[in-house]
Structure formats: C-alpha cells, structure tokens
C-alpha cells in the first residue's frame, strides 16, 4: 500500500507508474520481513526480560529455556508419547463426530420428515456451551478415555452437521432438475449431484470441526488425565514448569495447524473443479 501511494501523477518518471512488475518475489519477501519484525522484537524483549530475571521463570519461562526444554522432552520420548495419545483421542472423537454428523445431515437434508425430527433437537443442543458439559460427561463416563473422546465428538459434530445440512439444502434446484431429465433416479441424483454439490460446505465444516476438536481435547485433558499432552501440562503445573506448559501449548497449536493443512490439501484435490482452485 505504501509503495503505490508514493507514485503520484505529476512527479512519476516514465515507466514508474504502479508497482514494478519484474520483482513481485522480492516485494513479497520484504513484506514478510516487515511483518516478522514485531514478533521477533517481542521474542527478543521476552528473552532479555528472562535473562535479566525481570520475568521470573515461575511466571513464564524464556524462549531459550522453552527451546531447550522442547529438545529434552522430544529426546526423552515423553512428548512424542503424549502427542500420540492426544492425537488418537482427537482421531477417535473426530471420527465419531464425522460419521454421526454426516449421517444426521444426510437424513435431515434429504427428507423433510427427517429435518422435522432431527433438526430441532440439534439446534437446541448446539445452543449449549458444550465445554460446560464436562462435569456431566465425567459423571456418565467416569474419568477414563470416554469423557475426553466424548467431549471431542460432541464439540465437533455440530459444525459438521450444520455445514453439510446447509450445503445439501443450498444445492441448485436447477441441477437437480437437469438430473431428473437425464433420468438419474433418486439414488443417482444423491450420488452425482447432492453429495458432490454439498462437499465444499462439508469440508468447511470439517476444518471448523477439527479446530473445535483440538480445543475440546485441551479442556478434556486437563481433568484426570494420566497420559497425553494434557497430562504433561497438569504435571508441569504442579511443579511450576512454565517452560513445559508453553512447549505443550505450542504442540497443540502445531497439531491444529497440521490437521487443518491436511484438510486443506484434501480440499484442493476434491474441489479442483472450482475456478479459484484452478486459477
């Protein structure tokens, strides 16, 4: 923005109107560097504050300590084991949410009767703050894996249901008519028109559902976990190890980004017919 605004009509030399087309890469690089400047400055200040003991490690460990702690946790295998356990919880809970969400959305998206039966209770449940259900889940499922997986599934099922239901309802009726004139039959119309047509919406729901799944896990794992990333955090809290806590939070963030990236890759392939993906 700043670059283009400096080019004024009166003083611009010949050929200098607008951004220089030859170097879009270097412009982007400079832009990235500018945007990185303030986070890097904050980290530097943070490190200085830690080294001068202005910031006590009991409040927050310094960046250097966090990096070395991360190295130690990885080397000991502690972090990897915890990560696997946590990942499996998300996988289990999210799979349940995906199957349940798709099944419910298909029934209520494809039939008016199904919608009348299924949609109202889901809208009611959706209105509840689902993280607040944790005490109930513990009462129902005990303190093992079930409440954690259940909380993940419960949180993720709504975005999947809602987006797919909306996607099915939003399909262009004209395409369905075209399918009728081609005599595809009900099954053929569902297979060739409704499901692929609702897929973009479903994938948005999957991405959103995944972020909710990781969030639910973070909360679920704070309670009575004996393994997983949440357990490492609880343990570290008892020993005032702020560096370990920060490392675990970073791991959560990275896992969230990775799973989101995975869905985005699926999206790029499955929706390659869309012009914005083609272009």
């Amino acid at each position: 923005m700043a670059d283009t605004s400096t080019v004024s009509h009166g003083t611009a030399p010949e050929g200098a109107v607008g951004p220089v087309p030859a170097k879009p890469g270097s412009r982007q690089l400079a832009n990235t560097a500018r945007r990185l400047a303030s986070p890097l400055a904050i980290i530097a200040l943070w490190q200085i504050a830690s080294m001068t003991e202005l910031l006590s490690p009991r409040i927050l460990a310094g960046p250097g300590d966090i990096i070395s702690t991360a190295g130690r946790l990885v080397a000991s295998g502690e972090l990897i084991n915890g990560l696997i356990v946590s990942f499996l919880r998300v996988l289990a809970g999210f799979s349940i949410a995906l199957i349940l969400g798709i099944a419910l959305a298909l029934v209520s998206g494809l039939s008016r009767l199904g919608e009348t039966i299924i949609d109202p209770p889901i809208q009611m449940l959706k209105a509840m703050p689902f993280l607040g259900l944790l005490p109930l889940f513990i009462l129902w499922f005990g303190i093992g894996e079930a409440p954690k997986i259940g909380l993940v599934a419960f949180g993720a099922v709504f975005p999947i249901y809602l987006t797919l239901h909306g996607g099915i309802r939003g399909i262009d009726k004209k395409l369905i008519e075209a399918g009728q004139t081609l005599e595809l039959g009900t099954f053929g119309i569902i297979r060739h028109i409704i499901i692929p047509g609702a897929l973009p919406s479903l994938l948005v729901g999957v991405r959103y559902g995944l972020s909710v799944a990781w969030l639910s896990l973070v909360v679920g794992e704070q309670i009575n976990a004996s393994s997983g990333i949440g357990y490492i955090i609880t343990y570290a809290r008892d020993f005032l190890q702020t560096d370990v806590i920060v490392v675990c939070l970073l791991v959560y963030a990275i896992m969230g980004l990775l799973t989101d990236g995975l869905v985005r890759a699926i999206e790029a392939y499955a929706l390659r017919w869309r012009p914005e993906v083609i272009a």
Partner: protein
Amino acid sequence: MSNLVDIRKLQRSFGGPAVLDGIDLTMAPGEFVALLGRSGSGKSTLLRVLADLDTAPAQELQLPARRSVVFQEPRLLPWKSVIENVALGVRHPDARLLAKQALADVGLSHRLDAWPLTLSGGEAQRTALARALVREPQLLLLDEPFAALDALTRLRMHDLVFELWRKHHPAVLLVTHDVWEAVALADRILVLDQGRFIREIRVDIVHPRRRDDPRTSLVEAELLKELGVEPLHA
C-alpha cells in the same frame, strides 16, 4: 402417420388464472416446431410438462419415452469433466465412447477433460446440447437455449442445431422469444399467448434461410405483429 406427441386439452394453473388453458399440440416424428411467446405466456410451463418436470391434467398426453432437455443455462455439473457430464445420462456400456462422439459432433473434441466452469458460454451450451443428443432422444426440448449467448455465438449455434437435427432427426420443440431464431429453424411456428395458441404458421422456405429473403421477412413481420410488436420498417 402416427404422431410422436399428442396432447389434448392440457390445463395448468398455479393457483391463479390458467397458465396453460386447454392446449392442443401434436408433433410428427422429426418435426421441428418453434414455440414463440412473450414472457409469461406459458411457453416454459408447457415445456416443463413435456419434460416431466411438472405434471398437469390433460385429456390426452402422449409423449415419446426418450426425451432430452437443453435449458437456457447449461446446467452442467461443475464437479464433473465435460465428457463425464455428457456420459452421465447414458445407460450403455460404451457411454464414454458415445459421449466422445457426441462431443465431436458439437466440435468440442479438444475440451473433453475440461471443467465446466472453465468453458465459455457457447462451449458450455454446446456441451449441454451434446449431453441431450447423446441420449438419442425422439423428442428434443430446447428451452430458450441460446438466450444467454452473445449474438454471434447465437447465430453459430443456430447452424449447429440445424446440422445436428438433420443428422439425428429428433422431433424438436424450441421455446424461444427470438422471432428470427424461430423463422430460421422451424418447420412450424406456434405463438402462445395467455396459455392458448393464437397462431400457427408453417414455414416451407428451403434451408439455409436468409434473413434478407423477402419470404422470411414476411413471416417475421407477421409473427412480430402477433406478439404485439409493430416492426418499424413494415
């Protein structure tokens, strides 16, 4: 000769006054009929009944089993390639091969694997035409199929449709509000107004019909008058 289409006293209303008010329509096999009318005259409603997209009571409603439709919009499935779209409505083990031939017929052999959203308007409509013809319809229903195209593309589409009709010889019902389109293509032109046919004109001029031919101009002028438009040069 037995009729391919035989409709008597077709009636359709959507709550209010009748949109189709006792329509009688017969079509011979291979006949090219154009249906002209102002917007709201009921011509699309009639086509939708013939396409089985709408039901309406009639004294007699005899239609051929194999029917295909081309709409004003191409209505291609954007998530299927051009050839997949064309092959979709074919129940045949060689569906893909037949689709390929149909696309060659409309001059799209080079776009088989393209995504519909990357096609131009004319290409998309040609794909829709191939998708309809590959089913070897006895009756081809065209619902203002060129209305959304630019004038040049539209004229080229007229030639293409005429050629394809000559080759496959389905009966064609072309719904349009473009008078020249009707005169250029049809054997018989019906004018629909307020749910009734108010005029029927047989056009016996040999093809290709030229717009500057006084005979076509005469038919055009007559049709325009029926539609309530007085041509300036008449």
